[in-house]
C-alpha cells in the first residue's frame, strides 16, 4: 500500500520537475547578467566574445539550448559548470550532504527546543513560566535567522570565542571519509574527536536556522498540548494518580504532536531554503553557498542543476511528511 502511494506520488512529481526545469531554463536566460560578459578580458574583440559564447553553447537559440540540455539531463548529465569547470551533478552531490546534515541538525535542535518550550509552558500554565515561554518564542520569531547568525557569531565567535564561526571542519583535520556525510560517517566509525569538531562547526549555523523554527514549533505545540490537557483521557489519568509530567510526556504529547509535525514539515523546506544565507555567513560549504556563487557568476548550468535539486528535495520532503502523518494518524492512511 505504502509502496504504491510512494510510486504514485513520485509519478505525480515528474510533471512538476519538468515544469520547474523549463521555467528555470528560460528564466535564467532572460534575467539580466551574461556569463560571458563576466569573463571578457580587457582587449577582447567582438570575435573573441563570440568564440567564447560558442564554446559554452550560448550562441544557440533558447529552445535549441533547452533541447540539448534536456537530452543530456535525461541521461543524467546536467552539464558542466561554467565557473567551476566540473560536472554539475558531481558538484551538487558533493555539496548536498553537508546542507542536509546542517538542515537535519537544525531541525533536531528546533524540535528539541520547541518541544521543551511547549512542555514547560503547559507545565507552568497561568504562571510566570508560561509568560516567559511566550516572550521567548515571540522574541525568537521576531528575529530573522540571518540576524541570529550574526548575533551568535558575535557572542560565541568573538566575545566568548567558544565555537568555530566558519567552515564545516577544522582545516587541520583530514577526515579521509568515503562519503560526504561527514557527521554520519564520523559517528558510525566512532571517530569522536572528528564528530565533535563537526558538531562544533554545525552548532552556530544550525542554531541560527533553528531558533525561529523552534519558536514556531513551541507555539503550535503548546497550544495543541493545552487543548489535549482538557481531554477526558487526561482527566482519567489524573484520577489514576499519574504525575503531571507523565501525563504531558507520556499521554498528551503524542496526540498533540500532529499539528507541530505538519508545521515542521512545511517549515523544513523553508529551512533548507534559509541555508543559502546562513551558509554564506558561516562560510559553510553546502549547496546554499554554491547557489550564491552560481548566481553571482551567472553560471547557468549550475543554477539550473541546483534549482532542480531544491525542487526534488521539496518533493521528497513532502512525500516523507505524508508518510509520517500517516504513521501518526491512521485515519490518513486511507484518506
Amino acid at each position: 500500500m505504502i509502496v504504491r502511494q510512494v510510486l504514485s506520488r513520485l509519478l505525480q512529481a515528474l510533471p512538476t520537475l519538468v515544469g520547474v526545469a523549463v521555467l528555470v531554463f528560460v528564466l535564467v536566460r532572460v534575467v539580466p547578467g551574461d556569463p560571458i560578459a563576466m569573463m571578457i578580458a580587457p582587449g577582447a574583440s567582438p570575435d573573441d566574445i563570440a568564440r567564447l559564447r560558442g564554446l559554452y553553447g550560448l550562441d544557440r537559440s533558447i529552445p535549441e539550448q533547452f533541447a540539448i540540455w534536456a537530452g543530456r539531463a535525461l541521461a543524467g548529465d546536467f552539464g558542466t559548470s561554467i565557473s567551476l569547470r566540473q560536472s554539475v551533478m558531481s558538484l551538487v552531490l558533493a555539496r548536498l550532504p553537508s546542507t542536509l546534515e546542517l538542515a537535519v541538525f537544525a531541525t533536531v535542535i528546533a524540535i528539541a527546543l520547541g518541544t521543551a518550550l511547549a512542555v514547560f509552558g503547559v507545565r507552568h500554565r497561568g504562571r510566570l513560566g508560561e509568560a516567559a515561554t511566550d516572550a521567548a518564542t515571540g522574541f525568537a520569531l521576531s528575529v530573522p535567522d540571518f540576524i541570529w547568525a550574526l548575533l551568535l557569531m558575535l557572542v560565541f565567535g568573538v566575545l566568548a570565542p567558544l565555537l568555530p564561526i566558519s567552515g564545516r571542519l577544522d582545516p587541520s583535520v583530514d577526515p579521509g571519509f568515503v562519503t560526504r556525510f561527514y557527521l554520519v560517517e564520523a559517528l558510525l566509525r566512532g571517530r569522536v574527536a572528528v564528530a565533535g569538531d563537526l558538531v562544533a562547526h554545525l552548532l552556530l549555523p544550525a542554531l541560527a536556522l533553528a531558533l525561529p523554527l523552534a519558536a514556531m514549533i513551541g507555539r503550535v505545540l503548546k497550544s495543541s498540548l493545552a487543548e489535549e490537557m482538557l481531554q477526558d483521557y487526561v482527566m482519567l489519568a489524573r484520577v489514576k494518580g499519574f504525575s503531571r509530567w507523565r501525563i504531558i510526556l507520556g499521554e498528551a504529547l503524542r496526540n498533540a504532536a500532529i499539528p507541530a509535525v505538519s508545521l515542521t514539515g512545511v517549515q523544513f523546506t523553508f529551512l533548507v531554503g534559509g541555508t543559502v544565507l546562513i551558509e554564506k555567513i558561516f562560510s559553510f560549504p553546502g549547496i546554499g553557498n554554491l547557489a550564491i556563487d552560481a548566481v553571482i557568476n551567472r553560471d547557468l548550468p549550475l543554477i539550473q542543476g541546483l534549482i532542480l535539486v531544491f525542487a526534488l528535495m521539496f518533493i521528497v520532503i513532502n512525500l516523507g511528511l505524508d508518510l509520517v502523518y500517516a504513521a501518526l494518524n491512521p485515519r490518513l492512511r486511507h484518506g
Partner: protein
Amino acid sequence: MQLTRRGLVVGGLALTAAGSFGGLGSAAAQGRPLTIAFNVNLPSWDPTVGPSAVNPTIQALYQSVFDQYIGQKPDLSFTGGLIEKWGWNDDKTKIFLDVRKGVTWHDGSPFTPEDVVWSLERAGKVETGNPIQFVWAKIGNFAIDGQRVTADVKEFEPALFKWMAFLTGYVLPKAYYTKVGAEGFEQKPIGTGPYMVDQFERNAFLRLKANPNYWGGKPAIDTVIFKFVTDASARVAEIESGAADVTLEIPYEEYDRLKAKKGLKGVATPVSDIGMIFITDVDPMLDKRVRLAAATSIDKKALVDRLLRGYGVPLDTLQTPEYEAYDASIKVPYDPAKAEAMLKEAGFSKDKPVKFKIQTTRGFKPKDYEMVQAIVGMWRRIGIEADIEVYEIAKHYELRAAHKLAPAAFYNWGNAIGDPSTSTGHAMFGPSPHCAWKGQDTVERIAPLWDEKDEAKRIAGYKAVDRYIAENGLVIPLLQYVQPIVFRDTLTVTPYVSGSLQPQAIKTA
C-alpha cells in the same frame, strides 16, 4: 549498551566540547599553521581557463601554487619567474624566453622548456577557453634551443611580457596535465610554486604545504590555510576571535578598530584598482560642458576623507602613481563655481537641472553606493539631477559589453601590470567591449598606440590621450583604492600593489 535520554544529552555536550575546546587545530595552539581568512572562493584550479582566471583577487591563490612566466615585485615592477630573461629581437618580430634551470614540479618531475611552449600554445588555442587567448595567439612557431625558447610574433603586442606576469600567464605541467586531464588536474593540481596543495575543500578552505624544493627558497611558513570567508563581517570575526591570523578587504572602520587592538597590526596600501565613473556617449553627455561640469564638481578628496576614512588616493586619470604612464601634471581640479558656470552656458541651472541616470553597484566595492550618493549630492548643488540605479555587477558587464550603460556608471578598474593599454587603452577605445565612450576622437588617438614599437613614444602617446580625456571629460576617474590587511603582531606582511596577498610574503616577526 542502553541508550538513555540523559546519556544522549551528556554525550552530545561532550561531543560539542570535544570539538570546540579540544585539540583539533585549536586556534590557541602553538606551532599552528598560518590561517588567512580570505575574501573570495577558489572556483577552479586551472589558472588559465574560465571566469576565475580573470579574477584579480584569486591570483594570490594561483601564485602560491603556480609560477608565472615572469614574476612581479610588490611595487608592480617585473622580475624573473620561470623565465629568467626575455625580450624582443631588434625589429620586434621575434621573442626569446630563457627558461630557468633546476626547477621541479611538485611531483618531483623536472620543469622544462617544453612545459613553457606547451602552456603558451595551449593558452593561444580558442578551444581551451582561455579568456586572454587573443593575446597568447599573437605569438607562435615556437622553437627550443637548450633553455632558450623563441617564437615568431604574429601580431605585435607591446604588453606581451607584462601579460606573462598577469592573468592566465601561468606555466602548467605538460606531462602531468596530459596524463590526468582537466578533471584530474582539478582534483590534484601541481605547479612549481612556493606552496603545494595539501587539501582543498571547495568553498571552505585550502591547506597548503611549503614546497621544500622551491627555486626561490623554501617559504618561511610551513603550512598555510586559506579559509574562504566571503562575508566581510565574518572575516572581522575570524581575526578578532583569533581563528585567523591574517585577513583583508574589511570595512575601513573595522580596519581602524582592529589595528588599534592589542595583538593585531594593520597595513593599508594603495593597490592597482581604481574607482571611476564611465561616461557613455549619449544625451546629455554629448555636451562637453555637461561632462566637464560633472567631472569638476566632484570633491574627490572629500569622498576619500569622509567616506573612506582617508583610505584612497584621489585620481584625475585612469593611471595610478605606480603605473608607467602616470602623469601628475594632468589635473581635473575641483571647482564647483566653474562647473556651475559651464552648466549655465549649456543652458542648465539649479532651477532647470540637467537630468540623467547614474548606475552603481551596492556593496561590491567599499562605499560604492554611498560615494555615488555623495556625488549626486554634489551635482545637485550645481544643477545636475541624477537618478541612482543600483544594479549587480553581472548586469554592469552585460550592459557595458552591449554599450547600453546609463550616461554615467560607477565601476572599478584593475590593472595589475600597470600598462596604459590595460587601463586607458581598453577602457577608452571605442571598439573594446569594455569602453563606454565610443567616440571616434579617442579611437583615432589610441589606435596607433596598439602596435607602437617605440616604448617611450607609446607611453608618451598614452599620456597625451589621458590629457585629452581629462580636458574633455570623457571619463571621471575618482580614486585609487587602498587594500586593508589586518594581521597578528607576531607576523610581518609585505603588501603587493597588485592587491595579491601572497602567503610567501608573510613571515613571523
